[in-house]
C-alpha cells in the first residue's frame, strides 16, 4: 500500500471497516511512513475528542422541555382552547360516576399543536402541585438482578428493591440504590459502586444523571414527567389514555397511561432488555384533588403479553434528607473502572484482533487461570467473582459477532458456549466494545 492508498483508506482503517488483509497492509504502511503515521495520529486524536463529547452528552434530552416552552410561548394569549374546554368537561363527567370501576373518558391520538398545548395544560395540572419540590424519595421495585445495571430489566427475574433520594434545593444531589449497586451525586462528583464486583467508577463533576439512571431520574422530575410523556406520545404516535377511578381510600384518582415504543425491531438483541430498549405501558396514578402523583407502574409489552417490570409504590415529598445519604464509603480494596484502556507494551497484538478473536483469547486465558492475560480484555482488574466463576472453564465455541441498534457504534456481541468448572454449560453473548485509544476490544457485559 502506498501513501495515496493509505490516506484513502485511513478513516476506514480507524473505523475498523477494512478486511483483515487491507488492515494489515495499512498498519504495515503506517509503521514505515512517518507522514501517514502523523495523519493517523491526528485523526485518532480528533476522534477521541469527538467521542468524549458524544459520551458526555449521551443522556442529554432537551427536546421535550424545549418544545413545552415553545408551546407555552406559542399559545400564551390563548388561555382556553376548544380542546381544553372539552377535556375539562369530560374529565368532570367521570367524577362520582362509578364507585370502583375505572371510567375511560378519553382515548385519543392527538395531532395538532393546539390540542397538544391544551392537553399538556390539563395534564400538567397535577405536576404543578409539586413544581416547587425541595426533595423527593421514591420507593419501588424492579424486575432485574440486584447488582445489574440500573437500566436493566428482565421479565423473568424476581423483583428487587430500588430507591431514589433526590434533593432539588438548595443544591441538586441524588442517590439511587439497588441491593447490589449504589450511585450518588453529592454536589461535587458522581460515584458508582457495584458491590459484588467491588468495582467503582467516579465522574469528577456533579452529573444530573449518570450510570443509566436516566429513566428513574425522569420519573422523579415530576413537574416534567407527564408533559414529557404527552409530548413523546404526540411526536411518536404512542397511544395515550386518561381515566378516572375511585381509590381504596375513597378518593378519586386520575390515571394517565402511555404505551411507549422503543423504536427497535423485534429481532434486535437488546430489545426489551432495558428501559430504553423496551416497548412499555406506563401507568401514572394521581390523586385528583391534591394533584400529587401517588404511584407508577411500568409493564413490558412482550409478544406473549404484558409483564409488570417496575412499580413505584411510595413517594415521600419534601422530607428532610440527611446529607450523609448522598455519600457512601468505598471498600479499601475497591477496583476502579478505567474509562480509557492504557496502551500495552504489546498493544498491537491485541489491537489487531477481531472481536471474535478477542472473545476467544479472553475465555482461553480464563480457562488457564491466566488473570494477567485475561485482564487485557477488562477495563478493571478481573474481579474475584469472575475468577471464581470462570477459572478452569473449557471453551466449546465462539460464534460470529453481531450488532444491536440499541447499543453504541463501537459495541458488538459475540455468541459463546463454554463448560464451567462445576460441569454446567453456559451459552450467552459476550458484549465487547472497541476502545478508541488503545484499539483493543474490552469486556462490557454478558458473563
Amino acid at each position: 500500500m502506498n501513501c495515496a492508498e493509505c490516506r484513502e483508506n485511513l478513516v476506514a482503517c480507524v473505523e475498523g471497516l477494512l478486511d483483515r488483509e487491507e488492515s494489515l497492509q495499512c498498519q504495515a504502511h503506517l509503521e514505515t511512513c512517518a507522514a501517514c503515521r502523523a495523519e493517523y495520529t491526528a485523526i485518532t486524536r480528533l476522534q477521541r475528542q469527538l467521542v468524549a463529547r458524544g459520551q458526555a452528552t449521551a443522556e442529554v434530552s432537551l427536546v421535550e422541555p424545549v418544545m413545552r416552552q415553545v408551546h407555552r410561548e406559542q399559545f400564551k394569549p390563548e388561555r382556553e382552547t376548544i380542546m381544553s374546554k372539552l377535556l375539562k368537561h369530560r374529565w368532570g363527567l367521570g367524577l362520582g360516576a362509578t364507585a370502583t370501576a375505572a371510567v375511560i373518558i378519553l382515548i385519543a391520538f392527538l395531532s395538532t399543536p393546539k390540542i397538544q398545548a391544551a392537553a399538556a395544560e390539563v395534564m400538567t395540572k397535577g405536576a404543578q402541585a409539586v413544581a416547587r419540590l425541595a426533595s423527593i424519595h421514591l420507593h419501588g421495585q424492579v424486575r432485574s438482578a440486584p447488582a445489574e445495571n440500573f437500566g436493566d430489566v428482565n421479565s423473568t427475574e424476581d423483583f428487587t428493591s430500588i430507591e431514589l433520594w433526590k434533593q432539588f434545593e438548595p443544591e441538586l444531589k441524588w442517590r439511587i440504590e439497588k441491593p447490589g449497586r449504589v450511585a450518588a451525586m453529592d454536589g461535587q462528583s458522581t460515584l458508582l459502586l457495584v458491590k459484588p464486583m467491588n468495582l467503582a467508577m467516579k465522574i469528577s463533576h456533579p452529573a444530573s444523571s449518570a450510570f443509566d439512571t436516566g429513566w428513574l431520574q425522569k420519573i422523579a422530575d415530576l413537574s416534567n414527567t407527564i408533559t414529557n410523556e404527552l409530548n413523546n406520545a404526540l411526536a411518536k404516535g404512542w397511544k395515550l389514555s386518561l381515566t378516572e377511578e375511585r381509590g381504596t381510600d375513597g378518593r378519586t384518582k386520575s390515571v394517565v397511561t402511555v404505551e411507549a415504543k422503543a423504536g427497535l425491531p423485534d429481532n434486535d438483541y437488546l430489545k426489551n432488555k432495558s428501559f430504553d430498549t423496551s416497548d412499555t405501558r406506563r401507568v401514572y396514578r394521581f390523586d385528583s384533588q391534591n394533584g400529587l402523583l401517588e404511584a407508577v407502574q411500568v409493564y413490558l409489552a412482550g409478544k406473549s403479553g404484558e409483564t409488570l417490570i417496575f412499580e413505584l409504590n411510595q413517594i415521600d415529598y419534601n422530607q428532610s434528607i440527611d446529607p450523609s445519604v448522598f455519600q457512601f464509603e468505598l471498600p479499601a480494596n475497591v477496583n476502579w473502572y478505567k474509562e480509557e484502556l492504557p496502551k500495552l507494551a504489546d498493544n498491537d497484538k491485541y489491537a489487531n484482533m477481531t472481536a471474535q478473536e478477542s472473545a476467544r483469547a479472553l475465555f482461553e486465558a480464563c480457562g488457564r487461570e491466566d488473570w494477567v492475560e485475561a485482564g487485557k480484555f477488562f477495563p478493571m482488574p478481573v474481579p474475584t467473582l469472575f475468577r471464581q466463576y470462570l477459572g478452569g472453564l473449557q471453551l466449546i465455541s465462539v460464534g460470529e459477532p453481531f450488532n444491536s441498534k440499541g447499543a453504541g457504534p463501537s459495541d458488538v456481541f459475540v455468541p459463546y458456549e463454554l463448560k464451567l468448572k462445576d460441569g454446567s454449560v453456559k451459552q450467552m453473548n459476550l458484549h465487547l466494545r472497541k476502545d478508541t485509544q488503545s484499539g483493543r476490544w474490552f469486556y462490557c457485559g454478558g458473563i
Partner: protein
Amino acid sequence: MDLTDKEYVERCRDGHQEDFRVLVDRYQKPLFAYLAGRLRDGRQVEEAAQESFVRAFLSLKKLRKPESFYSWLLGIAGRVAKEQLRSLKHRQQDCEVTESIMANAADSQEENYPLEEAIAALPETYRQVILLRYYEGLSCQEIATRLALPLGTVTKTLSRAYALLRQELAARESAEPTVNQTELP
C-alpha cells in the same frame, strides 16, 4: 430522507412549528457540549441550552441565512452563557465558589468550545455525518443506511470532515471566538 436545516427553518416559519423539534433533536447534544465548555454547572448548562433554543425559536423570522441555523444558535448560546455568568457573579459577588466557577469557565473557553464552533463552520453535508457519528452514536454502516449512501461515501465524507475540522481548529487557535457575530436574534 431528512430535510436540511434551511428546509426545517423555512417550514417552522411557514407555521409548522412542531418541526422545530427536529432542529432541537439535531443540535441539542453539540449545543450542550458547547455550553458545558463555558458553564461547568450541569443545571446551568441545561437551563442555558433550553433558553437558547427557545430564543432561537422566537427569533427564527429574523434569521437571514437559514442554512446557518446551527452557527446562529451557537451565537445565541454564547450570549445566554455570558448572561448566566454575569447574573451568577452579581448574585454571589463575594463568594469564592463563584470565582472558581468563573475561573473554570474562563479556562475552559480556551480549550473546549472551539470544537463545536469548528463543527458549526462545516458545510452541512460534513456536519451531518460528524453529528450522526459522534453525537448520535451511529456506526458508519448505520449512517450509510440512514442517508441512503454507499459506505465508501460515508468514510470519504468523514475523512474530508476531519480534514476541514483540523483546518478550522488550527485557524482558531490564535483567533478570538467569532461565532456569527453579525446576525443577532
